[in-house]
């Protein structure tokens, strides 16, 4: 997939003017944010579990190569196969090769962000294999030919009316001519259309939330049950994973799972958590005949031991997106690649390169909510700052930004000058504002004043007030 990360600023402006998107994003925060809080409140041990979860992932990363080898050995023991791929291109070819080995015509797919990284659907279509997304949200965006705007709620940017239109347009070929509007009826129609696809599909592809080293199991978490029908009814089960998804034991996975659903959707537990260990056993009545795990690196191994290693602890819950004022305002597509929001702004430059994505680390107010809600306590703001620093040092970004930063840095290093200049600027702004007390536009700040007025500063500068207060205190006042 060609990243559209370079045009982040234009994408964001477009997103702000997109009425459908703005209406879909409205009020969405509430359910997720309060739901998360409510379930965490009912679990007094939440922070201890979080600490355990951080330790598990740190331990995994410290010994990652040994864990991956252990996992691989156990998958083989279970009768499965592991395929290693460095790039999305290698992984796409591997999937196609596996599909062709059983002459596959159709593939059902559970939700997989790694599949998005590989841009797998377009590739399979080009090679005459029909991919069918079965997660309802993924199905909707497949019909719309879009990418997910959220890592766990991929179609959250779509309004009900847009879904109605999409189903109306694409379900005609199944004899569904009525344009449905009721969400319940829309869901029923999708269920009815997707059901037979599970049975006829040759290959079922799912992602993996975890890879359990001790048992060679892969784990998926869903609420719909689509991932299970996908992997149980097809002849071949292909799992798409990345190296950092290891959890050493079943108990470690349970610790991680306790925080995953609560952080993701505010549920006590997701409806279906499934551990898959190899193909159907000879005595089993159902299950796939073969089982393959594709481990796609795509830049992760370079992050091990680097200043971005903490990012590899991410369990993809999406809490940082839901709590981000930037994501909540512009949605996910503006970020231009697979992973949006704070976690995406840290991860994407590591995968597609900072040169192509140097705007992403700027898509943050540094309010810190992402780190606060991250179940793995990932220091997202610190890493965003690191990206900004790297971008500055590599002379990326617009010259005007660099000049601005350089000018500010000069003043910041000369406190006397800084205070003098801010005092002067304050007076100037006050003068310009006149009796109205606010400014409609300010030179060099049209980005800010384009959408709102700037209130004129009142009183004294912070430093002047601080000094005055200190003097009062010294004088015995309160």
């Amino acid at each position, binding site marked *: 997939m060609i990243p559209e990360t370079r045009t982040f600023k234009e994408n964001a402006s477009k997103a702000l003017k997109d009425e459908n998107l703005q209406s879909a994003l409205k009020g*969405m925060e509430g359910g997720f944010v309060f739901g998360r809080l409510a379930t965490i409140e009912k679990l007094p*041990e939440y922070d201890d*579990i979080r600490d*355990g979860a951080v330790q*598990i992932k740190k331990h995994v990363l410290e*010994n990652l*190569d*040994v864990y991956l080898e252990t996992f691989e050995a156990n998958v083989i*023991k*279970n009768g499965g196969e592991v395929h*290693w791929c460095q790039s999305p291109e*290698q992984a796409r070819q*591997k999937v196609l090769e596996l599909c062709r080995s059983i002459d596959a015509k159709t593939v059902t797919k559970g939700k997989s962000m790694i599949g998005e990284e590989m841009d797998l659907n377009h590739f399979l279509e080009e090679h005459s294999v029909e991919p069918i997304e079965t997660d*309802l*949200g993924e199905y*909707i965006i497949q019909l719309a030919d879009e990418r997910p705007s959220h890592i766990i*709620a*991929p*179609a*959250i940017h779509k309004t*009900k009316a847009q*879904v109605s239109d999409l189903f109306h347009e694409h379900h005609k070929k199944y004899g569904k001519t009525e344009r449905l509007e009721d969400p319940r009826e829309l*869901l029923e129609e999708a*269920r009815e259309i997707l059901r*037979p696809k599970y049975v006829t599909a040759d290959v079922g592809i799912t992602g993996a939330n975890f890879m359990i080293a*001790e048992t*060679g199991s892969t784990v998926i978490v869903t*609420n*719909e*049950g*689509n991932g*299970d*029908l996908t992997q*149980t*009814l097809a002849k071949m089960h292909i799992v798409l994973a990345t190296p950092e998804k290891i959890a*050493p*034991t*079943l*108990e*470690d996975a*349970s*610790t991680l*799972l306790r925080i995953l659903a609560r952080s993701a959707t505010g549920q*006590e537990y997701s*409806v*279906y*958590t*499934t*551990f*898959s*260990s190899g*193909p159907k056993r000879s005595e*089993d*009545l*159902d*299950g796939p005949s073969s089982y393959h795990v594709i481990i796609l*690196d795509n830049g992760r*191994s370079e992050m*091990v*031991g680097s200043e971005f290693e903490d990012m590899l602890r991410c369990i993809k819950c999406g809490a940082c997106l839901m709590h981000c004022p930037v994501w909540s305002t512009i949605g996910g597509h503006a970020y231009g690649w697979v992973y949006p929001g704070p976690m995406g702004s840290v991860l994407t430059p590591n995968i597609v390169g900072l040169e192509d994505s140097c705007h992403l680390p700027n898509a943050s107010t540094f309010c810190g909510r992402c780190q606060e809600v991250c179940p793995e306590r990932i220091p997202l703001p610190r890493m965003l700052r690191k990206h900004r620093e790297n971008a500055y040092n590599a002379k990326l970004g617009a010259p005007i930004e660099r000049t601005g930063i350089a000018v500010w840095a000069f003043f910041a290093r000369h406190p006397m000058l800084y205070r003098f200049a801010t005092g002067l600027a304050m007076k100037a702004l006050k003068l310009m504002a006149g009796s109205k007390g606010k400014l409609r536009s300010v030179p060099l700040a049209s980005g800010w004043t384009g959408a709102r007025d700037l209130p004129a500063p009142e009183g004294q500068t912070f430093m002047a007030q601080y000094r005055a207060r200190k003097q009062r205190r010294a004088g015995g006042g309160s």
Partner: protein
Amino acid sequence: MTGARDQILGRIRGKLGNDKRAKSEQAVTDWLAKPGVKPEINPIPARGQISGEALVDLFREMLSVAAATIDDVDDIKDVPGAVSAWLAEHNLPAEAVMSPDLCMDEIPWDDQSMLTLRRDRAQTSDAVGITPVFSAIAETGTLMMASSADTPTTLNFLPDNHIAIVRKSDIVGTYEEGWAKMRLRDPRAGDGNFMPRNVNLVTGPSRSADIDKTLFMGAHGPRRLHIVIVDDVKED
């Protein structure tokens, strides 16, 4: 793709320090040597560390949170009647596909002569599936299902209605207790792995809020999950 494998693993090892390989091997061996709960790494919520009727009550409470329905019967012989009544109440045909599992034979199904049961995996045409559980986890009202020749996975997902028969003795407090029980399963000859092809943790009926952020039951899996709790630990 051996080349890719060696390059990925080699790069990771290089980043971690080639001299630390032996230490890593030891660390992994130590971590995996004692299977089970490591108290400082895997804190267990107090919520699930209870027993007796309190445990059953927590299971009931969390099942309700997960939008499953519950029926309590005093004796195993009352199960067929309860199942028939539930089917009638929901205007469902007295027909179901049921696990071939032997533990279902302890239930006197013949008492309900109207009820037709097929013992097999599920097909898309099956409206009702009846299964036992491997374990039931009170902490979140979760059913732990282990696949086998006698307990096919399709029964948990294909029928619109899933009825699970839970004996009180199946109920444990936490996932970890379920895993401890799983670890005692007879490993298949030679391979030493206790895990079945599938372990499904099921917490309520299937659902989705992908359209209009409105939550509806029955996205792809069962629309209804009904639990019959059998009192098999009566103290009197």
